[in-house]
């Protein structure tokens, strides 16, 4: 092993080690959420994952971004094979170790080159969509503060830089072999066109090739460690997130079991509230109804927050948002993530909060840090009450995030813990309680519709 191999080994270990450490932090954050049993239905879940996550099924509702995204996504998958080669080469001082596969290697390198070129084009198009004077509507919005905007662009710059490094490496390597009249395994449709740009000097070419090689692999490792701070983490989290998505009809809201026991006990005094499985020692903490803070949400809702691509498809179909109300489902999801990282102080490598306090989020109601929570500190009741529970956001999300669940949990907190529903809703509640209907009509009038109709059986 040369000194170079050892340095490389250390770099790779550090890269993956750091990544693992960050992922553990995020795992811990997510596990602060409430329990929810998501086991079972393995077949159906796998099928969903295959279709929605691997197959990009929901992306194809909008064709232009779908195609652009597909290029970058396939490019990412194919480049992973190349990364395996780079790691082996780096550790064992080999050069293009997969070269022996002949035809396969030709196909691999050629695909890689073409995809990389397409990725550069796609990235440019993405950049244009976001940064022209009138960006695509869904890339705007109150929650798209300085950090989310910078993040989106950084990802594009890094991706482009990685591709440029790859071309530098390939072109220099190709030219070096040409100069030395040696054979280089693989096919290089794009680099073959670029060789003219490089000098003929063998040493320079070797240096350039090594430069490209190192920038490419170190860049990938840096990018990997940037992911946990970024919306780009979705390239990993989309898979578990889709796997654990809801299989029930969208209209079905969760049942609150603790309330069921209470209601049953009220209606039938003999009803025995089942004792929860004897929790070791710990007094069963009095559970709050609904969600005030991130740890009151189910862990799947927290997983959502780390899977969000901040694409804004949810917000762009939200009837409340479309008609100018404060509600933006994307904001609810982004707030959840920000609040988790604030509360549990997850030390990420690139701490977006360092970019400035207002970069991520401004607390809606200025409370002191200890006392502000997801609800009120981040999400205002006004946003929550604007939701029509129409499920459009759920339908639109390409990675099966469900903002509506979080909205309902927070509404439950407002109503059940704080009795803070808008007054007209309280009127509706008492109508239901007293008249059995949301309107103030007497139950005895329930049959009046039949007055103008001859009905045989009443």
């Amino acid at each position, binding site marked *: 092993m040369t000194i170079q191999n050892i340095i490389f080994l250390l770099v790779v270990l550090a890269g993956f080690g750091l990544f693992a450490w960050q992922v553990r932090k995020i795992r811990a954050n997510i596990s602060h959420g409430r329990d929810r049993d998501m086991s079972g239905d393995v077949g159906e879940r796998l099928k969903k994952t295959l279709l929605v996550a691997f197959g990009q099924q929901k992306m194809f509702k909008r064709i232009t971004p779908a195609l652009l995204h597909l290029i970058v996504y396939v490019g990412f998958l194919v480049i992973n094979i190349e990364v395996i080669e780079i790691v082996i080469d780096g550790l064992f001082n080999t050069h293009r170790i997969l070269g022996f596969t002949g035809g396969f290697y030709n196909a691999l390198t050629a695909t890689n080159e073409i995809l990389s070129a397409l990725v550069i084009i796609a990235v440019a198009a993405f950049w244009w969509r976001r940064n022209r004077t009138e960006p695509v509507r869904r890339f705007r919005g109150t929650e798209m503060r300085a950090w989310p905007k910078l993040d989106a662009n950084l990802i594009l710059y890094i991706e482009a830089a990685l591709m440029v490094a790859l071309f530098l490496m390939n072109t220099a390597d190709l030219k070096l072999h040409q100069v030395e009249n040696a054979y280089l395994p693989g096919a290089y449709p794009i680099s073959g066109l670029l060789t003219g740009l490089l000098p003929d000097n063998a040493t320079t070419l070797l240096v350039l090739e090594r430069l490209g090689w190192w920038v490419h692999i170190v860049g990938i490792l840096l990018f990997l460690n940037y992911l946990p701070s970024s919306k780009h983490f979705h390239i990993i989290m989309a898979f578990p997130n889709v796997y654990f998505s809801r299989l029930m*009809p*969208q*209209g*079905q*809201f969760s*049942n*609150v079991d603790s*309330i*069921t026991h*209470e*209601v049953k006990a009220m*209606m039938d005094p003999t009803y025995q509230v089942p004792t929860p499985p004897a929790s070791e020692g710990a007094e069963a903490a009095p559970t709050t*109804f609904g969600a005030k803070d991130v740890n009151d949400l189910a862990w799947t809702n927290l997983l959502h927050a780390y899977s969000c691509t901040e694409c804004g498809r949810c917000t762009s*179909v939200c*009837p*409340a948002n*479309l*008609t*100018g109300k*404060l509600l933006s489902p994307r904001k609810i999801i982004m707030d959840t993530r920000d609040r988790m990282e604030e509360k549990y102080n997850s030390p990420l490598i690139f701490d977006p909060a360092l970019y400035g306090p207002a970069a991520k989020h401004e607390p809606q109601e200025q409370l002191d840090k200890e006392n502000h929570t997801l609800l009120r500190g981040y999400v205002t009741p006004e946003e929550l009450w*604007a*939701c*029509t*529970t*129409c*499920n*459009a956001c759920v*339908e639109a999300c390409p990675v099966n995030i469900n903002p509506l669940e979080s909205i*309902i949990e*927070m*509404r*439950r907190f407002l*109503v*059940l813990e704080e009795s803070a*529903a*808008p007054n*007209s*809703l309280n*009127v*509706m*509640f008492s109508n*239901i*309680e007293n008249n059995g*209907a*949301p*309107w103030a*009509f007497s*139950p*005895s*009038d*329930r*049959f*009046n*519709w*039949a007055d103008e*109709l001859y*009905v*045989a*059986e*009443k």
Partner: protein
Amino acid sequence: MSDFAARGEEPEVLFWVGCAGAFDDRYKRVTRAFVRILEHVGVKYAVLGMEETCTGDPAKRAGNEFLFQMQAMQNITTFEGYNVKKIVTACPHCFNTIKNEYPALGGNYEVIHHSTFLQQLIDEGRVKLEGGEAYKGRRITFHDSCYLGRANNIYEAPRAVLEALDADLVEMKRSKANGLCCGAGGAQMWKEPEPGKKDVNIERTEEALATLDGNAEALARIQGKESGNEGATPAPKQNDQSSIIAVGCPFCMTMMADGVKNKERESNVQVFDLAELVASAEGLNA
């Protein structure tokens, strides 16, 4: 229902009228239309009458889980008392709640929305849609209710019913899974909307009207696209024959009707429920 019980008989289906169907003056007409259809085809049905009470849907959507479960338990007890197995309702909210949310509280029934029920009657040939008002050539657009469509994946049944009418069915830009809410769901029906640019039902009505008028320019405006500035904006081309916005939900009915009124188009655009359309095509005027 109690009459059936007194006779020791059981009806084929329970028709769940719902609060809107019982109290809303406009929607009472739909209830009557549906009952006429049931009687016309001779389905043995029953209603709960005064024993019916709110399913709890608005309470649940508004976050009042406690009130919801009280209502649900009460209804489940009533259903148990009459050994109810099959329920049909014209309200997607009642439909969704009884079908999807009652099972967790011990209530399992076969629940059918009236659009599916009507489709079945048409498919079986029990409803022929002749002898009454003809819809041939009239423009109809169907507004998908969130709680029928996205919530429960029922998109085809209402369309099958409308196609059977032999009308000119046109689709709005946002339809089926991409449909836009009427703005009344999630307990919005009972409160003022939050401040914003406009109300959701106006947005949706504009879209429906543009579709019915076949007005591409108006459509483009709704989609937020820049329309060419050449010349003056052409006046919307309006149908001579009155066109119809079809709905399958009492809340959508209210919202769309208000929207049409707001746009002062009542003279040539009407809002009807599927059951009303079928009833009048059968010559069963409600």
